[in-house]
């Protein structure tokens, strides 16, 4: 369930006017920005951008970029973009880091639906004049490259058909691959990056039934390289995305500093999807509501925006 609370009837013109006013004069009325944008869904935000462009002949995003700064600006920027465009930006940011943030690539590829992932690939091309897979491939090597390229280029079957016999045999292949810590990467990668999500669920369940533990637990190992952790991330995302996101949030709000990138990313990308469920998982796991943890660890307008996206009533 989504957390954001967007009214059904909205005047895009009015919203554009409010935003314009908020950006005029000295400083910016961040509260007004949050109170408008924080309560609009993707379709509405798109219309507001168009209305703003029509009224004032400038791109709302560019205006906001120039007026705002810091974590707040980054969060607003990501929030206002359309989902596919946003994912393209997140992917590009991850790729272009000095040490590519492979987990983000895996996260995006595995938690979006097949059609959504296609939209991300299109948006990526429009923005960066390269294909997503081209950039991922050029910035990675070895098994990680194989895994990530396969993940971003997958167009998984999204029907209900599953093959139990196949699930059994592939659960066995996965087990054979992990048990001696030999990790026959090719087969593991093939299964994880091509099978449909439903098929993988059945496979993972079968694995758990046969071995009393989830396949993720068996994918531990200190091979030293990046491959296993990214593989684990992929499996977690495919197996139980909500649990995965809870963990990302938990880690980002660690006592020693906050990982704003991760915090923003999860809240902004899930607010219109399943953030409510993720909140429940968080509460259960940490005995503290997510809102409270976020409020404790962030401040100012950044905090205000996050809390609004988390569903806080004004």
């Amino acid at each position, binding site marked *: 369930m989504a957390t954001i609370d967007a009214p059904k009837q909205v005047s895009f013109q009015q919203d554009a006017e409010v935003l314009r006013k908020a950006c005029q004069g000295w400083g910016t009325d961040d509260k007004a920005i949050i109170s408008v944008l924080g309560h609009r869904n993707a379709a509405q935000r798109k219309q507001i951008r168009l209305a703003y462009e029509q009224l004032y002949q400038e791109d709302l995003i560019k205006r906001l970029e120039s007026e705002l700064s810091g974590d707040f600006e980054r969060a607003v920027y990501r929030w206002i973009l359309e989902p596919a465009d946003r994912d393209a930006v997140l992917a590009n940011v991850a790729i272009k880091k000095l040490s590519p943030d492979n987990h983000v690539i895996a996260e995006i590829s595995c938690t979006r639906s097949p059609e959504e992932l296609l939209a991300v690939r299109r948006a990526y091309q429009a923005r960066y*004049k390269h294909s997503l897979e081209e950039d991922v491939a050029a910035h990675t090597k070895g098994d990680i490259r194989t895994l990530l390229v*396969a993940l971003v280029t997958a*167009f998984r079957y999204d*029907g209900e058909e599953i093959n139990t016999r196949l699930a059994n045999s592939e659960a066995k292949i996965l087990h054979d691959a992990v048990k001696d810590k030999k990790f026959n990467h090719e087969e593991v990668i*093939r299964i994880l990056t*091509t099978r*449909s999500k439903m098929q993988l669920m059945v496979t993972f369940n079968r694995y758990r039934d046969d071995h009393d533990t989830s396949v993720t637990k068996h994918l531990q190992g200190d091979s030293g390289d990046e491959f296993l952790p990214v593989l684990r991330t992929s499996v977690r995302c495919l197996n139980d995305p909500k649990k995965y996101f809870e963990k990302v949030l938990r880690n980002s709000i660690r006592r020693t500093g906050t990982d704003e990138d991760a915090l923003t990313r999860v809240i902004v990308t899930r607010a219109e999807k399943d953030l409510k469920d993720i909140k429940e998982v968080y509460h259960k796991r940490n005995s503290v509501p997510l809102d409270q943890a976020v409020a404790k660890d962030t401040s100012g307008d950044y905090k205000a925006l996050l809390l609004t996206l988390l569903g806080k009533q004004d």
Partner: protein
Amino acid sequence: MASPSEVEVFNHALSGIGVDENSLVSILVKSHDEHKKSIRKGCSQLFFEDERQFERWNQTAIKSLKAEFKRFKDVVLLSLMHPWERDARLLNKALKKGPQQYNIIVEIACTRSSDQLLGARKAYHSLFDQSIEEHLASHVKGSERKLLVALVSAYRYEGSKVKEDTAKSEAKALLNAIKDGDKKKVMENDEVVRILTTRSKPHLKEVYQQYKKISGKTIIEDLEVVLLLKETVECLCTPQAYFTRVFDAALRDNANEDAKKALTRLVATQEDEEIKEVAAKFQDKIEERVKGAYKDVLVGVLAKEET
């Protein structure tokens, strides 16, 4: 009694690509027992004298005639299909047939536009209840797996922007990989696969040019031994040369069935302007070797002027 010329006509109607339905009809309608007997006696390619004293159809002839009669039906069905369904079906068939037909997978993955290939992948879900990459990956065991799966998964950038520096360094990377020699190694080489399966076509054409500069030969010449890779580069960088080769192989004198089937496949891919340009060069050959309704379709489709 059938005249020698009628026997000649009968033979002619069944030798070539497709069958001359009209000639066959006119022979059959005025045929009676004696007539047919002299045809059987006269066509030694199609009939032989059985030990029990009767003229028998040659079994291989029946088999190849089956294929010839089937051509019209196939071209009708394939041509009328939505391009997505057509490509999904072609991919599926090629996959099932195995390594001799993997070039069809390469052809489709590399000559379609990014969105057309995406459409084929969608149709594949509908038709076969699985994704093409899933099917390919679990089916192909050899060194071609990496290349083929990556080719069908590509969604290449289609703008014209090209970075010469990158093209230069990638041409070098390809040259180094090819120099390493071993056929299997080249096909599975990470850089080779990365470059060929993710870069845009304009970029690859630039790589092709840069390669020629540093190697003296074209990539295609250097990849002579690794057929699938050669075809990949051809389809991506010099599609006209590829289609010319396919047409030539199909219209040659002792073309095999797989080569001839390519005609139907290419003709059904009407939306490709390059195919039509290449086909124009083969008009005479088509006139000479192809027969009947099948020929009418080929000539009609390939000769289409701009509307």
